C-alpha cells in the first residue's frame, strides 16, 4: 500500500533525511522514534508535501505522490491527514469550523470563505466530535480549549478528511500524561476501527511499545531499526538514540522489555 523508495532531503550541506526506504502493507500503526533532529518530522512533512524531497519516490497504491503538482498535490494532501505537535488549529474560529476545514479541498473557495457549509457537512463534523467525546465543546473557540481537547479537535479535522493515511507529528509531546493517553487511545481506535494507516512520530519508547504494530528507529536521517515493538531491546534503543553504555533508559521514559515495572507504575498512576 505504501512504499518509500530512497527518499532524501538535503538542507544546505546536511541530509535531514538520508536515503530511507521501507514498505508498509495494510492499515498498520507505525511508530517512528529517534532523538530530535533525526529527521522524523522532515519525513512526515515530505509525505504530506509540506516539504519537498530532494530525491526519491513515495508510492501509495502505485502512484508516486512526490511527483504530484498543483491541484493533484492538494488532493493528495486532502487524502493524507496530518496532526501536529502544536495542533495548528485556527484559534479564533469555533471548534466545528475547525473540523470542517478538513474538507476545504472538496468545497469551493467562495462557499468556504463565507462559511456556507451544508447541513450534512455540519452534522458529520458534529458526529465526529461526538465520537471523540468533545461534542459539548462544539460552539466554543478553539483557543478556549485545553491542549488535549485541541488535539482531539485536530484529530476530528483529520477524520473529516476521511483519509487513507493519518500522519501524526509528535501528537502528544505538548500534552500532560493523562491527555497523552486519551489522544493515543483515540489514534489507536481510529487505526483499529476504521482501518486507516497511522504513522506517528513519537519521542518516548514506552508509547511506541504500547501502541505500535511496527517501530522504525531513525538516527541522523537514516533508518537504523525496523521491526516489531518486541524486538526493541535496550541495545537497539541505545543504538537509535546514539547513547553509550551509560544510557539511562529513564531519560527517554523507556522500560526494558523484560521489565514491566515502569509500565505497571505508569498504569497505576493513570488509574490513581
Amino acid at each position: 500500500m505504501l512504499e518509500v523508495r530512497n527518499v532524501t532531503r538535503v538542507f544546505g550541506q546536511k541530509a535531514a533525511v538520508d536515503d530511507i526506504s521501507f514498505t508498509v502493507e495494510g492499515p498498520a500503526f507505525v511508530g517512528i522514534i529517534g532523538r530530535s533532529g533525526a529527521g522524523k518530522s522532515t519525513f512526515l512533512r515530505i509525505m504530506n508535501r509540506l516539504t519537498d524531497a530532494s530525491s526519491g519516490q513515495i508510492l501509495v497504491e502505485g502512484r508516486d505522490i512526490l511527483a504530484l503538482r498543483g491541484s493533484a498535490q492538494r488532493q493528495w494532501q486532502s487524502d493524507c491527514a496530518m496532526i501536529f505537535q502544536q495542533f495548528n488549529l485556527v484559534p479564533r474560529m469555533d471548534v466545528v469550523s475547525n473540523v470542517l476545514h478538513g474538507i476545504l479541498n472538496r468545497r469551493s473557495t467562495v462557499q468556504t470563505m463565507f462559511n456556507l457549509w451544508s447541513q450534512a457537512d455540519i452534522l458529520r463534523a458534529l458526529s465526529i466530535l461526538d465520537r471523540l467525546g468533545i461534542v459539548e465543546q462544539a460552539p466554543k473557540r478553539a483557543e478556549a480549549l485545553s491542549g488535549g481537547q485541541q488535539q482531539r479537535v485536530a484529530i476530528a479535522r483529520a477524520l473529516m478528511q476521511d483519509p487513507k493515511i493519518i500522519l501524526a507529528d509528535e501528537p502528544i509531546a505538548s500534552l500532560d500524561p493523562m491527555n497523552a493517553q486519551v489522544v493515543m487511545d483515540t489514534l489507536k481506535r481510529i487505526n483499529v476501527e476504521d482501518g486507516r494507516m497511522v504513522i506517528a512520530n513519537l519521542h518516548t519508547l514506552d508509547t511506541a511499545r504500547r501502541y505500535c504494530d511496527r517501530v522504525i528507529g531513525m538516527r541522523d536521517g537514516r533508518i537504523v531499526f525496523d521491526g516489531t515493538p518486541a524486538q526493541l531491546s535496550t541495545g537497539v534503543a541505545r543504538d537509535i538514540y546514539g547513547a553509550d553504555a551509560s544510557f539511562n533508559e529513564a531519560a527517554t521514559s523507556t522500560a526494558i522489555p523484560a521489565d514491566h515495572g515502569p509500565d505497571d507504575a505508569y498504569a497505576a498512576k493513570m488509574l490513581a
Partner: protein
Amino acid sequence: MADTAFGPHPDRGVRQVETAYLDLVRRRRMYGGILLIVFVAMMAAGFDLAQSRNAGRVIDGLPMVLSFPSEVISEAWDKRGNIPALLAEHLPSLIETVNIAAVSTLLGGLAAMVLALLSTRGLARWPRLTPVFRRLMDATRAIPEIVIALMLIYILGGGPVPAVAAIALHTAGALGKLFSEVAENADLKPVEGLTSVGAGWGQKMWLGIIPQVAPNWLSYGLMRFEINVRASAILGFVGSGGIGYDLKIAMQWGQGRYDQVVAIFLLLFATIVAIDRLSDHARARLVKGRNA
C-alpha cells in the same frame, strides 16, 4: 456528558448540541445576510445622493476621466528631450521638500513614541492619565495640516518652518496611535523580568518594549515619511516652498508646461520608491540581525 445519566435516550445530549449549533449557524447567516442587504442599500442610496448633488452626471463624465492625464502625458512625450534638464532644475526644491518631510517625521515620531508609551494600557507611566494623552493625539489628528500651516504662515511668514510644525503635529498624533497599538501587543514577560531586577519605568520601556516594537515602529515611521513627502509637497501650494510650489506654478501655467509637471511627478515617484526600498532594507536588518 451529564445528560446521559438522566434518561433512556443516550443520544439526547448530542441532539441538543446539534440543534443548538445549527441554530447558531442559522443566526450567524441571518446577521450576515442582513448586513449585506444594509451595505448594498446604503451604497445604492449614497450613489443616488452623490449623483444628484454632482454638477454633471457621473456616468457621462466617466469617459472623460483620462482626458487630462493623457493630454499631460502626450505633451510631455512630445517634449521628452527637456525632461532630464527639468529633473536637474527641480532637484533642489525636491531636496527642500524631502528635508521638510524628514525633519517633521523625526520630530513627530519622537513625540509619538512618548505619547504612545504614555497612552498604552499596561505600560503607561500614569495609567489614569491615558485618556488625556489619547484625546491629545485625537486632537492633533483632527485638525487638517493645511489649516495649521496657513495659520502659522500668517503669523510667521512663508517658508519651511510652518510646514514642519504643521506636519510634525499631525505625525505625532497619527504615529502615536499606530505605535500604541503595536506596543499593546508586545510581550509583557520581558518587562516583568526587568521589573524583577528593580528597573525604573524609562528603563523598562527602553530595554523591554522598544527592542520588541522597533521593526514595526520603524516601518510605520518610514511609511509616515512617505506620506509626509506628499504632505509637504501639498503645503508648497499654500506657500511653504519646496517642490509643491514649482508644481503649482507649472500646473497654473496650463498647456505648454506639462513636461515640467511630468518631471516633478517623476521626482516624487522616485523619492517614494527610494524610501520604500530603504524601509524594506532597514526592517530586514532589524528583524533578522546584521547578517541578513
